[in-house]
């Protein structure tokens, strides 16, 4: 969350809105927002209806919490990209921004932007793994 806070301006400059979703009540979410100085909206799915409808509910922890994920949604609510993450590892905003910056300047057709980003990330991962080997 702090990583995305630190890159909030750049994400906005790249043309994206940013929001985070949990099952926290508004008071707990507001506390987190204040503690971490988060400039983006924290959305409160206290009845878990959204997380359940997105099939991202982990019912086995803390009464049901989201599976960590980053999903990019475009016009018409089309899913442009997604990353299903582990508890401790998440796709970084740095990687997101690097990929965004690697795209042509000017607004590309948005439905192609995130697939290009994810293709970049996948290639970048392979290059890193090859370098480690």
């Amino acid at each position, binding site marked *: 969350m702090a990583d995305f806070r630190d890159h909030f301006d750049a994400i906005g400059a790249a043309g994206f809105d940013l929001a985070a979703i949990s099952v926290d009540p508004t008071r707990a979410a507001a506390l987190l927002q204040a503690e971490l100085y988060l400039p983006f909206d924290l959305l409160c799915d206290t009845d878990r209806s959204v997380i359940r409808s997105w099939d991202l509910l982990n019912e086995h922890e803390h009464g049901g919490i989201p599976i960590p994920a980053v999903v990019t949604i475009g016009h018409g609510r089309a899913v442009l990209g997604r990353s299903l993450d582990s508890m401790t590892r998440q796709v970084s905003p740095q990687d997101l921004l690097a990929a965004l910056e690697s795209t042509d300047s000017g607004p590309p057709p948005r439905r192609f932007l995130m*697939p290009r980003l994810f293709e970049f990330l996948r290639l970048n991962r392979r290059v890193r793994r090859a370098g480690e080997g």
Partner: protein
Amino acid sequence: MNDDPLSIDPTTDDDQPSGRPNIPRVGDVAPDFQLPNTSQQPWHLNERVEIRPAILLFYRGHW
């Protein structure tokens, strides 16, 4: 659940976690929702993405 942080499926369904058939995939239309933010103001997905695309972070919560 795939443990790879860059487990992303840009064009295929290869990475769809087993037992999770309804997680929206690339190209799907995501379910609409409206949720309150910390100021109790409604945040409506469909309205927001008509203005610009949105990155949604699903996080575990504050404890």
